[in-house]
């Protein structure tokens, strides 16, 4: 276990360095001068520009800039925005919104997806099974913004059930629509995975043995099939949580939820380089930590993985 874990952590560090460097290079070498943009229509005096460049290390070669930034990250400093605020402070007010949205959507995905997948997998070829399959294909084929805007119109404006923007009504009212729409996409994958996994398990020898010895069907399904088909679904759900915590740019934008995704998108649009890099770094850490947890979890569930 220790060897397995240490190998994974070494890999993780390599990936972390790779991703952060790519993001850093993309943000700071692509066209668009953020310092010049700070002054708006009136160009900033040359000495101010030079001082700002020195302050944000923009006058150094790229690799030195990156090292400066990396040094900051290692001491827990995600950088300073061009307006002088620490990036972590800019993120602090955004986290609760994104975490609420992510967890609501995730819970919906898990409950509805597992139940639908189980029902479809147990009765392959039935109307329910076909319905689930068709539904999942349809759900993944409609762009998220089309669903978002339609849901706003129908449930928000026509029926008046839910607010269509902002978080003023708090959880759950303000989060129902966005979470349901985000969940719909992950739900498709969860139910498909669960369906395939359940169908495979139902065909396995041990289930045939259980049937043969006369175990009641609900015990077979509830105890044995569920447990044996859960592994791939759990892995997916854990990775999905990592992604959801990265904020869903589109949904946060449509429903005007001030979350991490929106912060990231705004800062990309305004060439707010340090914020983009800082937020991305935080997200990558969240994502990588989840993926190690997934590995540990699945190696605990299935010893074959850690002895690979």
């Amino acid at each position, binding site marked *: 276990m220790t060897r397995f874990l240490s190998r994974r952590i070494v890999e993780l560090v390599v990936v972390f360095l790779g991703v952060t460097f790519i*993001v850093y290079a993309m943000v700071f070498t692509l066209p668009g001068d953020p310092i010049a943009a700070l002054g708006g229509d009136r160009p900033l005096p040359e000495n101010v520009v030079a001082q700002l460049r020195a302050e944000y290390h923009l006058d150094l070669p790229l690799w030195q800039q990156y090292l400066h930034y990396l040094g900051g990250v290692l001491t827990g400093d995600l950088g300073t925005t061009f307006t002088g605020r620490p990036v972590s402070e800019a993120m602090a007010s955004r986290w609760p919104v994104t975490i609420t949205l992510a967890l609501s959507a995730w819970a919906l995905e898990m409950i509805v997806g597992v139940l639908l997948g189980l029902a479809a997998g147990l009765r392959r070829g039935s109307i329910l099974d076909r319905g689930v399959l068709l539904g999942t294909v349809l759900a993944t*084929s*409609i762009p998220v*913004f089309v669903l978002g805007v339609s849901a706003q119109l129908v449930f928000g404006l026509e029926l008046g059930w839910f607010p269509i923007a902002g978080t003023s009504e708090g959880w759950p009212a303000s989060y129902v629509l966005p979470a349901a729409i985000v969940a719909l996409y992950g739900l498709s994958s969860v139910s498909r995975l669960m369906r395939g996994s359940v169908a495979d398990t139902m065909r396995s020898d041990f289930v045939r043995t259980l049937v043969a010895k006369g175990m009641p069907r609900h015990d077979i399904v509830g105890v044995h099939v569920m447990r044996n088909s859960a592994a791939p679904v759990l892995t997916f759900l854990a990775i999905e949580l990592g992604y959801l915590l990265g904020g869903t*740019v589109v949904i946060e934008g449509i429903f005007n939820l001030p979350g991490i995704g929106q912060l990231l998108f705004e800062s990309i649009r305004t060439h707010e380089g340090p914020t983009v890099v800082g937020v991305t770094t935080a997200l990558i850490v969240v994502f990588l930590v989840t993926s190690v947890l997934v590995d540990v979890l699945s190696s605990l569930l299935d010893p074959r993985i850690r002895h690979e």
Partner: protein
Amino acid sequence: MSEHIAATEAPAVAARGVWATVRRRPLFWTSLAALGVLLVVAAFPGPIAALLGQPDPRACDLSLSGQPPGDGHPFGTDIQGCDVLANVLFGTRTSLFIGLTTTALCLVVALVLGTVAGYFGGPADRVIARLTDVFLGFPFLLGAIVVLNSAPERTPLLVAVVLAFFSWPTLARLVRGSVRSVREAEFVQAAHALGFSHGRIVLGHVLPNSLGPVLAIATTMVGGVIVAESTLTFLGVGLVQPTISWGLQLSTAQTYFQTAPHTLIFPSLFLTVTVVSLIMLGDILRDALDPKGRS
């Protein structure tokens, strides 16, 4: 002689089995027919639009702004008074172009890197595995947004290249896995024993036998890319005027959805039908290639 048989027999048998499975599925023919129609539309949008009403998507009459479907405009007009149908038909070309170009680029990269990693293994495999990890490590949309946001001129080709740059790793992993599982097969060992070069083994024996599942996923991916393009365009970092695309139509329509819902409904209908057909086709091919799913 024997190698000739090995090279041609194996894929041929697989193809026949797949064909026998898919041709009995009505959904296979439905999605194929839908995609056929869309390809014809993409090839000749002008004449088809002329048949159904307004031939020119850029001939707009502001006095007819936001008209619901009616005479001369089967899908109505948008907020600028342009014919929605003509725009939808011309947009088909852009969407299919981006979907197919991106997927083709990804396939090329994935085949090269995936085959090298899967066939040779060792250090090459480790380097490529880390590289794919890095690209899978951050949300796909994020990278595309960052790059496209600083692009001076966002043409369909540029959007396709950027999308490809961030979406090849999934396919590369798939190719690697697929190649690895074939690498140990008896016929590959036989080819080694006969003293064939690596190039010949890979091109003649390994790839033909590992391409199936990859192509099935690539079909599905075309649909995903089309959705991704429309999402980027909706966010304002994708295609721009004067390009005609479903994404652009939808992103304008969103603002006027309450007064002119048809401007949102028709483009999204076309988009959904296209993507559903591609996903269905990919799913059916994947099922047919999986021996467990074959009847």
